[in-house]
């Protein structure tokens, strides 16, 4: 076998092995998307009921709460960025990071200090590499977040927002995550979580102008709101974590699918080249034999004379 042909054969073998791996990763990601979507769906009843309850308190009482009142001058905001622990997901992480950076820039232009909180090793690595300050970070659960993880993330954020701005507390909480629109479309977006605007929540909960009943609060509207709002924030963060996870798996699936397709194309091109090389080799061998034979014939013809 010729040297050229051997090189092609070796490359085909290696690309075939890579293709097998990317194909397997594609299928794993596809099954995880479905699982993640199911988790998003399972968390919806709780989120809907909670939103209804928050709206009810907001509409049914004139309670003022630090989590719903807008500070007069916002000096510091917190930005929570949700990325994934692992890469191989196309532009998933870079889109989320880009969205966070745009938001940070906008907030800083408005004269606010920005504290960054990060979920996921990828986002953390990005910020650490650029030696930017990260207030707090969490890693290790982005593939399959649980409610306990969401609580863990939410706790310091709620604490920061309840603290006075002078003592290092924040006035606003923004979240940047990747919304799972469909299998094909995922979108990085930012959202202001706190202070909560009750009107917007009300619009979400009752879009058809449905009138909420006058609730009797047990023990009191303030206490209910006190207990309700942290849970609401947790549930929003939980939902964002789940959507990010689903989006990550969908992005991985897509990236691995195109990798598999590319590997297929590469194998095809390489086999064509290998065939051409083999043919060239055979042609050369034939011409060598023919050339050798005629040289031999010429030589014997010469000696006869």
């Amino acid at each position: 076998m010729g040297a050229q042909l051997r090189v092609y054969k070796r490359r085909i073998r290696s690309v075939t092995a890579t293709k097998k791996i990317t194909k397997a990763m594609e299928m794993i990601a596809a099954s995880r998307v479905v699982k993640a979507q199911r988790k998003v769906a399972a968390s919806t009843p709780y989120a809907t009921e909670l939103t209804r309850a928050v709206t009810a308190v907001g509409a049914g009482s004139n309670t003022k709460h630090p989590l719903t009142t807008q500070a007069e001058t916002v000096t510091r905001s917190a930005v929570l960025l949700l990325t994934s622990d692992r890469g191989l997901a196309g532009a998933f992480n870079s889109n989320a990071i880009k969205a966070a950076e745009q938001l940070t820039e906008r907030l800083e232009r408005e004269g606010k200090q920005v504290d960054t909180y990060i979920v996921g090793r990828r986002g953390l690595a990005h910020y650490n590499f650029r030696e930017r300050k990260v207030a707090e970070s969490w890693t290790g659960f982005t593939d399959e977040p649980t409610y306990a993880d969401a609580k863990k993330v939410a706790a310091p954020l709620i604490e920061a927002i309840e603290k006075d701005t002078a003592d290092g507390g924040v006035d606003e909480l923004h979240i940047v995550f990747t919304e799972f629109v469909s299998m094909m479309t995922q979108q990085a977006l930012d959202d202001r979580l706190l202070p909560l605007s009750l009107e917007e929540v009300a619009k979400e909960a009752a879009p058809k102008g449905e009138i909420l009943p006058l609730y009797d609060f047990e023990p009191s509207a303030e206490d209910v709101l006190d207990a309700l709002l942290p849970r609401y924030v947790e549930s929003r963060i939980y939902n964002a974590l789940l959507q990010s996870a689903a989006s990550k798996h969908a992005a991985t699936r897509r990236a691995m699918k195109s990798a598999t397709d590319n590997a297929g194309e590469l194998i095809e091109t390489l086999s064509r080249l290998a065939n051409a090389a083999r043919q060239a080799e055979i042609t050369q061998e034939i011409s060598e034999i023919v050339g050798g034979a005629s040289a031999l014939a010429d030589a014997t013809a010469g000696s006869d004379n």
Partner: protein
Amino acid sequence: MAAELHVALVAADREVWSGEATLVVARTTSGDIGVMPGHQPLLGVLESGPVTIRTSDGGTVVAAVHGGFVSFADNKLSLLAEIAELSDEIDVQRVERELERAKAEGDAAAERRADVRLRAAAAR
């Protein structure tokens, strides 16, 4: 037939139970509260504790609820809890082991959780 109310017991990551009931007893921060059909709209903070649901076919469903809310309007009652388990789902022996471990480690929160589970399992 007695009037009915629709109950949905929802945990953060799943719907635990839903169905028709005639009476729901839950523990709020200001004491036990019983809700029957036609109760006035209510929104309360739940304590950790067992919740008893008397279903319309005469059965009883007991669930351990760890913090959360109860909201009632239009004959629909929602019990929202971060963690909720039906008493049938509770493995008593495991919880007893958990309780002992929590006591040994002085973990008050875990001890309370285990205690709530045991009470719910006992009430079944």
